[in-house]
């Protein structure tokens, strides 16, 4: 009646992804059931205690509670799937409370034994499953299990993202800069109105500076470089404004045109500006200029969506890139070949055979021909 | 009439409350526990008895426990009426205590501590009712009584007992919790006071007649529930599942009498005969609004007697007898006439003595022979001669045979009925007397003149309402035959006895009390003699004098 393949054993322990694992397992079982098998799912809680230990009752109770919860969840999944509820059998058990379990090997033995007893052929492991303490020991467990006859699988669920460290050190320079900036901001808002505002401003700025100075900067601002950058930035703004207005008018014409003559493409440009603030500035400038929109910034590679050929041209000409280099690194750095000249451009969306990619043959040549959709999967994380 | 501040009324009530506490605490040592009961009952009786002379002199001992609600004090007042009831209750408590000890130990009952404690509280409440100086105080004790007796009714913890308990609570609370309180509220609203005043609260006489009528009806029905007035009597027969001493003291004396006593208070001290006579539609005549009450009482006493005829279960028959007899009292009160009042009030102790005897007899039969059904009692008089003799005396009193207490009181009522011009009620009384004989005679006959072997032929009255039609049907085995449906639930057979006469007929014991323990026999004989004394020398037995004092003090009622 049940082939070994159709039986699934799932070790459970409270974890962030347990709920999703249950969902996956039930979905999987339902799929198999749809093929005519009678699917059996066993949720087992492997005891980390022994029956005689003091406090084992409470531990056991906790395990039983968890199993009940899992069963409820499974019930929901089945209900939602709206199929014959008989096709999937769900059972729960607490195992191993008579043995001492030390290593992943012991666990694996225990699971295998249980699986054999009940004719189960497959183990699905919650990726966040942990054996005893706090460390994730899934890999060794999987390794051990793989030695045996069981098919093993890690449930493909989203794990909570682990973010990189945002926090860096606080230095006096960072602190002072932040303090000054926030103080200035406060005074602007308050309209520079007297002593009261001054006092409260200092207080507020102090709070901001102490709490946030460790996350606001990547490196120390320097007295030599920073003012120059600000100055060059001021020069940059009018140019940018001009660019914006011009391309805005172009885009406005396109949009208001009843024919809506657009030709959007996703392109990839490799740029040479420092990561962090300069890159952000460039990406934002590109976005601000109508017709181009930064979709993703991957270190030196910008994925830019362009609306009309006119905008694409401008992008590949690299004017903005040069300006940003100018703002951050000075005049010499601005002299640099355009992306098109460097061959750092690529149109990701092949528009089709009958419509060649608007005079950019070299773009395709460069980056190979991998097509658009699959790229979405790679990337961060 | 002078009022004297005293603690004796309070002491009388408290002594028994304290005893209840002591009983609970000494639950592990039965002898000590029973000692408390006896001690308390004796001292209570002493206290009450010590107030009798004062009551006869017209002095009233008063304990004021302060204000419950503005305008109403928590007032204990030992006036003659109160002393009448209190002395009765406390006297019979002594008797019953002994009997209870014998009975409970004889049957090896569970929960004896609870039983005795509840008993003590019940008596305390009864005495409290007796001494209550106003409607609210009486209400308080009335409710305490209901609560305290509930454990006694449900004592057996069987489904039947619980059902009876539920019914009991529902009825008495409908009467007490709902109607009495409502009536009290009404009276307070109408008169601004609820203190008892001989001859009635003056302000009530001048109040809005409709509302006053309503108040009277509500109060009368409220107390009437406990007094077993039809159609609110259902709880009483059911409550007979209780142990017999309970049935005896409480359902013949304390509980039902407290209902009757309440009616007496309402008639005499809240509204007063004059006010009542003035209330109600004109065509009610002299009796005024009391006429319906009298009519109800008359109907109850007749119908209950007839129902009693049909009951084979001894205690149930006695229960219906109680319902019927209580209505004598109510009728006496409702006739609003001096002699009738005397008769009615006197019937309170008279009936108490007699009915107690009867119940005790039933109880002793149950303990000794596990027999509850009259049809199974053939020849039992040979087995328990003293018991059945006492039974015969009391039954005679019930039927109004002279020389027993019942005769005196009934005589007064009949006289009163004629004097008040309500001859029809006198007729009812006489009819009921005949019915009384009809339902008691078979028991006596069965006990003394039947032999166990031919129980089929017992001379039950085969009237349109009475008789047991199925008895005639076949001549099979008597014991088998007579075990009717109630049998199984109601007795505590521990496997060794099944009720009914033994195969070879009852064994004969001597006449010197070998039939049972003196713990039970003594009380029976005491109660029986008391009813004889009250029948032979009513004045010497104090009660009649107290009653005459009460009625004499009522303004506007000739003595």
């Amino acid at each position: 009646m049940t082939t070994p393949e159709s039986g699934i054993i799932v070790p459970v322990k409270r974890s962030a992804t347990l709920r999703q694992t249950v969902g996956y397992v039930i979905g999987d079982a339902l799929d198999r059931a749809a093929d005519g098998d009678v699917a059996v799912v066993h949720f087992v809680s492997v005891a980390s205690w022994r029956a005689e230990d003091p406090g084992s009752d409470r531990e056991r109770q906790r395990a039983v509670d968890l199993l009940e919860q899992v069963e409820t969840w499974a019930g929901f999944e089945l209900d939602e799937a709206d199929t014959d509820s008989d096709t999937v059998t769900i059972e729960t058990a607490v195992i191993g409370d008579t043995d001492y379990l030390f290593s992943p090997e012991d666990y694996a033995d225990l699971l295998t034994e249980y699986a054999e007893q009940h004719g189960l052929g497959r183990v699905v492991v919650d990726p966040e499953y942990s054996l005893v303490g706090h460390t994730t020991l899934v890999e060794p467990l999987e390794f051990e299990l793989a030695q045996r006859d069981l098919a093993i699988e890690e449930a493909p669920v989203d794990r909570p993202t682990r973010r990189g460290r945002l926090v860096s050190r606080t230095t006096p320079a960072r602190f002072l800069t932040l303090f000054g900036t926030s103080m200035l901001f406060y005074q602007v808002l308050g309209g520079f109105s007297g002593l009261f505002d001054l006092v409260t401003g200092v207080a507020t700025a102090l709070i901001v500076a102490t709490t946030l100075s460790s996350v606001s900067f990547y490196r120390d601002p320097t007295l030599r470089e920073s003012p120059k950058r600000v100055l060059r930035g001021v020069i940059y703004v009018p140019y940018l404004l001009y660019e914006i207005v011009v391309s805005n008018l172009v885009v406005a014409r396109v949009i208001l045109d009843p024919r809506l003559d657009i030709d959007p493409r996703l392109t990839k440009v490799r740029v040479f500006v420092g990561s962090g603030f300069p890159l952000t500035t460039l990406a934002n400038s590109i976005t601000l200029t109508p017709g181009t929109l930064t979709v993703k910034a991957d270190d030196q590679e910008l994925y830019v969506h362009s609306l009309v050929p006119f905008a694409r041209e401008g992008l590949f000409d690299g004017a903005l890139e040069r300006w940003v280099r100018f703002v951050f690194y000075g005049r010499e750095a601005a002299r640099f070949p355009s992306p098109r000249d460097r061959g750092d451009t690529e149109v990701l969306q092949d528009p089709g055979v009958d419509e060649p990619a608007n005079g950019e043959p070299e773009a395709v040549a460069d980056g190979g021909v991998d097509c658009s959709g699959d790229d979405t999967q790679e990337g961060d994380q | 009439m002078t009022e004297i501040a005293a603690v004796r009324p309070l002491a009388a009530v408290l002594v028994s409350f304290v005893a209840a506490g002591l009983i609970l605490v000494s639950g592990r040592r039965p002898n000590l526990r029973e000692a408390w009961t006896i001690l308390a009952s004796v001292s209570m009786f002493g206290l009450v008895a010590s107030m009798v002379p004062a009551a006869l002199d017209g002095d009233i001992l008063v304990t004021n426990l302060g204000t419950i609600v503005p305008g109403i004090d928590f007032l204990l007042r030992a006036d003659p009426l109160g002393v009448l009831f209190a002395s009765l209750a406390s006297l019979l408590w002594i008797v019953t205590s002994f009997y209870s000890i014998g009975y409970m130990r004889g049957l090896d009952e569970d929960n004896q501590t609870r039983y005795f404690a509840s008993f003590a509280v019940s008596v305390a409440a009864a005495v409290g009712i007796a001494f209550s100086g106003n409607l609210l105080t009486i209400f308080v004790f009335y409710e305490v009584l209901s609560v305290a007796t509930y454990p006694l009714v449900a004592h057996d913890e069987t489904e039947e007992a619980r059902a009876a308990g539920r019914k009991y609570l529902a009825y008495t609370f409908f009467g007490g919790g709902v109607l009495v309180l409502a009536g009290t509220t009404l009276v307070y609203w109408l008169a601004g006071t609820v203190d008892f005043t001989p001859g009635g609260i003056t302000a009530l006489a001048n109040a809005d007649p409709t509302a006053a009528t309503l108040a009277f009806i509500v109060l009368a029905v409220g107390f009437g529930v406990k007094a077993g007035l039809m159609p609110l009597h259902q709880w009483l027969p059911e409550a007979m599942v209780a142990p017999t001493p309970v049935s005896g003291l409480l359902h013949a004396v304390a509980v039902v009498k407290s209902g009757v006593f309440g009616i007496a208070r309402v008639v005499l001290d809240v509204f007063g005969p004059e006010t009542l006579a003035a209330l109600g539609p004109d065509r009610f005549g002299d009796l005024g609004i009391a006429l319906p009450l009298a009519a109800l009482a008359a109907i109850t006493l007749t119908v209950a007697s007839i129902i009693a005829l049909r009951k084979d279960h001894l205690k149930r028959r006695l229960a219906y007898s109680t319902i019927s007899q209580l209505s004598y009292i109510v009728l006496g009160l409702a006739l609003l006439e001096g002699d009738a009042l005397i008769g009615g009030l006197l019937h309170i102790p008279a009936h108490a003595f007699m009915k107690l005897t009867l119940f005790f007899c039933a109880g002793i039969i149950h303990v000794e022979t596990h027999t509850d059904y009259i049809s199974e009692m053939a020849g039992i008089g040979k087995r328990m001669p003293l018991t059945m003799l006492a039974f015969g005396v009391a039954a005679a009193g019930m039927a109004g045979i002279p020389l027993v207490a019942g005769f005196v009181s009934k005589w007064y009522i009949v006289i009163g009925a004629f004097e008040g011009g309500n001859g029809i009620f006198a007729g009812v009384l006489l009819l009921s007397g005949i019915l009384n004989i009809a339902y008691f005679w078979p028991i006596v006959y069965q006990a003394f003149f039947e032999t166990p072997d031919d129980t089929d032929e017992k001379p039950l009255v085969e009237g349109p309402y009475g008789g047991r039609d199925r008895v005639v049907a076949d001549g099979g085995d008597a014991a088998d035959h007579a075990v009717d449906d109630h049998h199984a639930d109601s007795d505590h057979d521990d496997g060794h006895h099944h009720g009914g006469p033994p195969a070879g007929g009852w064994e004969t014991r001597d006449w010197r009390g070998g039939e049972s323990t003196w713990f039970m026999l003594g009380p029976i004989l005491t109660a029986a003699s008391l009813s004889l004394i009250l029948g032979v020398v009513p004045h010497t037995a104090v009660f009649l004098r107290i009653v005459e004092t009460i009625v004499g003090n009522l303004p506007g009622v000739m003595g």
Partner: protein
Amino acid sequence: MSDALLPLLIAIPLLAAVFPLLLGLRFDSAGWPVAMATSLLVAALAVRFTWAVSPASSGPQRLVHDLAGYPAPYGIELVGDGLSAILVLLISVVAVAVLIYARTTGPDSNAFYSGFLLLTGGLLGMALTGDLFNLFVFLEIVGLVSYALIASSDDGRAAYGALKYLFLGTTGASLYLIGVGYAFVATGTLNMRDMASELAALGYGDPLVQAAFGFILVGFMLKIAIFPLHTWQPDAYTYAPDTVSAFISALVSTTAAYALIRIAYDVFTVDFFAANPLITDAVLLVASVSIVVGSLLALLQTELKRIFAYSSVAQFGMILAAIGLQSETALFGAVIHLVGHGLMKATLFMGAGVLSSAYGAQTVADYAGLAKRAPITSGMMAVAGLALVGIPPSVGTLGKWFIALGAVEAGSWGVAAVIFISTLLTLTYIGRLLEALYFTQPATDDDTGVAGDTGDATDDGSIVADGGADSSTAAGLDDVVPVATERVVVVVVLALSTVALFGAAGLFAELLDPVFGRFFQ
């Protein structure tokens, strides 16, 4: 000096609520001592305050405190009179009792005790504030903390109950706020006294004023749990931890009802009722229905805490009826019944808590025969239960008497009848409990105590029996968990207090007469 009592009463528990958490960083169980010390202090202040407003002292019978020194219509004022004194006393006494009870059982986290103190402070604030919007703030503090405390149980159903309560409670508070808004639009002030005089000047027939009262009434009906709007209550009371059920059932609805009395009679005044017979009739009708249906629903339940919850619906129906009767007597009864009901429910829930933690009893059937095992607790539950029915001598009788008398005086025969009949209904469900406790053999162990006297009761301090060490009935008691003595003691004291208060009508009258004199000039 004495008017500083008012802000102190409110501020002390609210501020002290920080300490359990703060000290919790350092000590594991700082919560209980802090809460206890604060509650005792509050209780002492409450007594002092009651003394200050009672006619027995020579002081003013109405304390007014302008917060931060800004006088009334501009600032917020706190007002303490006899009526609020009664409430303040009740709150502080129950708080202390619950804390004693909670020492061994209570959800043993510092957050719980913080919540507890916040709830106490919020309730005191509701009792003392003289400002309509300030009342809303305290109403929400109380609500918020109640939701959290209820959900602090391990049971998932408690969270569900709390969420339901949150929806209905917040809706109720919002409706109240709308009502206040209407009155505010009509008068331009938020101070209660000020508004009372403005309303009187405006006339009570103004649709805005009528609507204002309507909203306030419905809002409070939600908070109090009057029949059609009671649905949050059973779940909330049933699944909350025992300590919390006791505390909340005793005080939260009670204080809301108090606030309704305050607003109805101090702000809208009795003249408003007189001018709007339709509203009065509606109140009486809803109240009567609540009494009857609440009792009937209680009858249908099997779980004990649920029975008590529905019983609250009925009892508060009675109080609402008293409010609608516009009778001084009835209102007097309502206040007494508020106090009485609070004490009785606290006793019952605590008693149920003791028995459920000792014997795992949840449903009425589980209570079979427990009287033998735990005579003291059962006895006290019986006492409180009978008091709830209104059996004298108990505070329950007193409340019912006055409400009924008020109904009769007002000529509302229907209401009077309903109140009397409700006694019977109450008896029916309390009777079930008593029957189970005393007259039913436990289903599992056969023949416990058949041995006659020996198994009957214990003489060496039956508290031990409640604690599960009673050797004589040990046969069926393997699963008994010991219960701390002080829990039983608290139950006893509270139960006896319901009896003792029977004689306290005079004290109530003394405190309330000046207040009611103002309400019913």
